[in-house]
C-alpha cells in the first residue's frame, strides 16, 4: 500500500505526540506502584503493630491487676478469696472468674463475676487440663489460647502460688470483649480492618462475626508460617471467598502467639494508582486527539500545496501553460509554487519564442525560394526594359513613362522580396566595432530624399564605437528613415540626433509627419502589420528584432499630426 504524505505525516506526528507520554506515563505508574506498595506495607504494618501493642498493653494491665498474687507468697492460705477477687475486679473488670487450685489442680475456692454464666458453685478438677499441667511443670505463669464463652472471647491464665507450706495455683479467666471491641474499631481507610488469628489458623476476631472460631482464609499470613514478628516484604495479597482481593500485613503478639492482621481491599488500597492510571490514559487519549488534530492541520498544510502543485504540473504536462499553483503558505512551499509559476511563464515564453522561430524559419525558407523565383523574372524584365530603352533612343513620352513604371515596379517588387528575406534571416549577427555617425551618413546617402524635405543632423562629433552587425544595423536605420520620408508626404523636416549617454549611444530619428495613432502603437512591431497602402509590414519588425539582438532598446514618441520620434539605444 502506498501511503500519501498526508497519512505518513499524520501517523508520525500522532506517534510523536503520544508515544513519549505513553512511555513516561506508564513508567511513572509502575514507579508509583512500587512506592505505593511500600507505603501501604508500612501503613498496614504500623496498624497491625499498633493493635499488637494494645493487646500487649492489655496483658500488662491484667498482670498488674493480678500483682496481688505476689502478696500471697509467704502468707497463709487464710487469705480471703473473696477479698482477693474484689480487689482484682476493682482494678480490672475484665476478670470474670478467679479460682484457687490445690497442687492436684482441684478448685478449692471459686468466685465469678455476675456477668458470667459460669456456675460458681461447680468446683472443677482441672488437674488434667494442658494449661494447668504446663503451669505446674514450668512453675510459671501460663496462658491458654483465646476461647469463647458464648460469644465472649476469654483467656485463661494460671499463676503458680509458691508458699512455704504448700503449692497452690490461681486460675483466672479474663474477658477480652472490651479489647475486642477496641480492636475491631480500628479502621484502615474505608474498607480496612484488623483480624486476629491464633497459631492454629483459627479466626479469633473478624468484623464478620460468623467467621470467628473458624479456620481463617488468612492462613498465608499466619505467624506459624512465617518466623518473624512482622510480615516480610512485599505486601501480601489474597482473595477472599467472594472473590474480593485484599492486601495486608501482620504483627505477632509474642506472649500469646497470636497474629494480628491489618488488611484492606486492594481496590481501595490502590485507588490512587487507579486514579493515576485513569488520568494518564485520559491524558494520552487527549494528547492523541490534540496530536491528531494538530497533525491533521500540519499534514493538510503540507499535502494540500503538494496536491495543488501536482495538479498544476499535470495541467502543464498536458501543454496548458496557464497552469498556476496558488499557494499562500508563506513558507518554502509557496516559494516552490512561485518558482513553478515563474518556470511556467518562462516555458510559455520559451515555447512562444520557439514557435516564432520556427515560423520565422519557415518564412525564411519560403522567402528564399520565392525570392529566387521572383528575382529571376525581375532580372529578365529589367534587362528587357534596358534593351528596349537602348534600342529606341527617343520613344514617345507615354512609352517612356510606361518603361519607367516597369522599372519602378521591378524595384518595388525587389524591395518586397528584400524585406521578406531581411525579416526571416536567421544568421547570427557578425559583430564589429563601428561608428554610428558614419553609418547614419551612409544611410542618408543611400535613401533618396524627396526634394521638399529638409534634413537636420545634430550628431555628437565624437561617439564611442559600438559593437554591431553593420549590415543589420544599417537595415534598421534604412527602414526608419524610409518610413519617416513616407510619413511626411512630400514636405517636412527629418532630424537625426546622436549622443553618448551613460554607457550607450542613443540615436533619435524624428519626422514631422502624420504620426502614429495610439491604437496602432502596440501593433507597430508585429510582422505584416502596416498602415501604408504599400508595404509588407516587416520593416519595423526587423528593426525591433535587430535592436533587441544587439541588447539595445527602442522607443517611440509619436503625436498624430505632429510627428514621430524613434529612439534607438545601442550599448557601448
Amino acid at each position: 500500500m502506498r501511503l500519501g504524505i498526508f497519512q505518513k505525516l499524520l501517523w508520525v506526528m500522532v506517534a510523536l505526540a503520544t508515544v513519549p507520554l505513553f512511555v513516561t506515563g506508564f513508567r511513572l505508574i509502575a514507579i508509583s506502584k512500587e512506592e505505593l506498595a511500600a507505603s501501604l506495607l508500612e501503613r498496614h504494618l504500623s496498624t497491625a503493630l499498633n493493635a499488637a501493642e494494645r493487646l500487649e498493653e492489655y496483658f500488662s494491665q491484667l498482670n498488674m491487676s493480678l500483682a496481688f498474687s505476689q502478696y500471697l507468697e509467704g502468707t497463709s492460705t487464710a487469705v480471703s478469696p473473696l477479698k482477693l477477687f474484689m480487689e482484682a475486679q476493682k482494678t480490672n473488670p475484665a476478670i470474670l472468674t478467679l479460682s484457687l487450685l490445690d497442687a492436684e489442680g482441684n478448685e478449692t475456692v471459686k468466685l465469678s463475676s455476675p456477668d458470667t454464666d459460669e456456675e460458681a458453685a461447680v468446683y472443677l478438677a482441672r488437674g488434667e487440663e494442658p494449661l494447668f499441667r504446663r503451669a505446674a511443670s514450668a512453675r510459671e505463669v501460663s496462658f491458654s489460647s483465646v476461647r469463647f464463652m458464648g460469644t465472649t472471647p476469654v483467656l485463661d491464665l494460671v499463676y503458680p502460688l509458691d508458699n512455704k507450706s504448700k503449692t497452690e495455683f490461681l486460675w483466672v479467666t479474663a474477658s477480652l470483649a472490651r479489647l475486642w471491641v477496641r480492636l475491631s474499631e480500628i479502621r484502615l481507610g474505608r474498607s480496612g480492618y484488623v483480624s486476629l488469628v491464633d497459631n492454629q489458623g483459627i479466626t479469633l476476631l473478624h468484623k464478620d462475626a460468623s467467621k470467628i472460631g473458624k479456620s481463617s482464609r488468612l492462613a498465608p499470613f499466619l505467624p506459624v508460617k512465617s518466623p518473624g514478628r512482622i510480615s516480610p516484604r512485599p505486601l501480601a495479597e489474597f482473595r477472599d471467598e467472594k472473590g474480593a482481593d485484599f492486601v495486608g500485613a501482620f504483627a505477632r503478639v509474642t506472649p500469646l502467639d497470636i497474629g494480628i492482621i491489618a488488611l484492606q481491599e486492594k481496590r481501595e488500597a490502590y485507588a490512587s494508582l487507579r486514579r493515576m492510571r485513569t488520568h494518564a490514559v485520559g491524558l494520552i487519549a487527549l494528547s492523541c486527539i490534540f496530536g491528531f488534530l494538530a497533525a491533521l492541520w500540519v499534514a493538510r498544510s503540507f499535502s494540500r500545496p503538494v496536491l495543488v502543485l501536482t495538479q498544476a504540473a499535470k495541467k502543464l504536462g498536458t501543454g496548458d501553460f496557464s497552469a498556476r499553483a496558488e499557494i499562500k503558505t508563506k513558507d518554502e512551499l509557496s516559494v516552490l509554487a512561485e518558482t513553478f509559476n515563474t518556470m511556467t511563464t518562462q516555458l510559455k515564453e520559451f515555447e512562444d519564442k520557439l514557435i516564432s522561430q520556427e515560423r520565422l524559419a519557415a518564412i525564411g525558407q519560403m522567402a528564399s525560394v520565392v525570392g529566387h523565383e521572383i528575382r529571376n523574372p525581375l532580372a529578365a524584365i529589367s534587362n528587357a526594359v534596358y534593351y528596349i530603352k537602348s534600342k529606341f533612343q527617343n520613344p514617345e513620352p507615354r512609352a517612356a513613362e510606361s518603361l519607367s513604371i516597369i522599372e519602378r515596379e521591378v524595384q518595388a517588387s525587389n524591395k518586397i522580396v528584400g524585406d521578406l528575406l531581411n525579416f526571416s534571416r536567421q544568421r547570427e549577427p557578425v559583430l564589429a566595432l563601428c561608428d554610428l555617425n558614419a553609418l547614419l551618413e551612409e544611410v542618408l546617402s543611400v535613401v533618396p530624399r524627396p526634394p521638399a524635405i529638409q534634413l537636420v543632423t545634430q550628431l555628437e562629433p565624437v561617439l564611442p564605437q559600438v559593437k554591431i552587425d553593420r549590415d543589420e544595423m544599417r537595415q534598421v536605420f534604412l527602414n526608419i528613415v524610409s518610413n519617416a520620408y513616407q510619413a511626411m508626404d512630400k514636405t517636412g523636416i527629418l532630424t537625426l540626433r546622436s549622443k553618448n549617454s551613460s554607457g550607450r549611444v542613443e540615436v533619435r530619428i524624428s519626422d514631422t509627419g502624420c504620426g502614429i495613432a495610439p491604437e496602432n502603437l502596440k501593433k507597430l512591431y508585429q510582422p505584416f502589420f502596416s498602415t501604408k497602402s504599400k508595404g509588407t509590414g516587416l520593416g519595423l519588425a526587423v528593426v525591433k528584432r535587430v535592436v533587441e539582438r544587439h541588447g539595445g532598446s527602442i522607443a517611440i514618441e509619436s503625436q498624430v499630426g505632429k510627428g514621430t520620434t524613434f529612439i534607438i539605444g545601442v550599448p557601448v
Partner: protein
Amino acid sequence: MNGKQKSILVVDDEGGVLNTLQSILEEKGFLCRTAISGREALDIFQKEGGIDCVLTDLRMPGMGGVEVIREFKKLKPDIPVIVITACEGEDPAREAMKEGAAAVVYKPFDMESLLRLIGEVLK
C-alpha cells in the same frame, strides 16, 4: 570596343535572363554565347574556345555555378568569371569568390553597373 570583338559566355537556366542579356550584350558589341546549363557551358568552352569572360548563375540544376567556375579555372585559370545570382546570402557568393570569381552581382541588377564591371574585367 578596341581591337578584336570580345566573346562572353552567359550561363543561366532562366531563359528570360539569358535571352535579354544576350540581346543587350550583342547590342553592346560583344560576341555572346549562351548556355542553359553548366554542362553545356563546359562543352562550348572546350569545343569552341576563345571565350574572354563568363557570366554565370549559381543555382542551376545539374552542374551548379560554383562547379562551373572550378572547371573553367582548371581549363583557363586567368578567365574572369562574374557571378549573377538571385540568391541573397553569403555562403554561395563567398564560395564562388573562393573559387576565383571576379565579382558577384545580385538579380535584378543594374545593367549599366554590370556593363562597367564587364569592361573592367576584360581590360
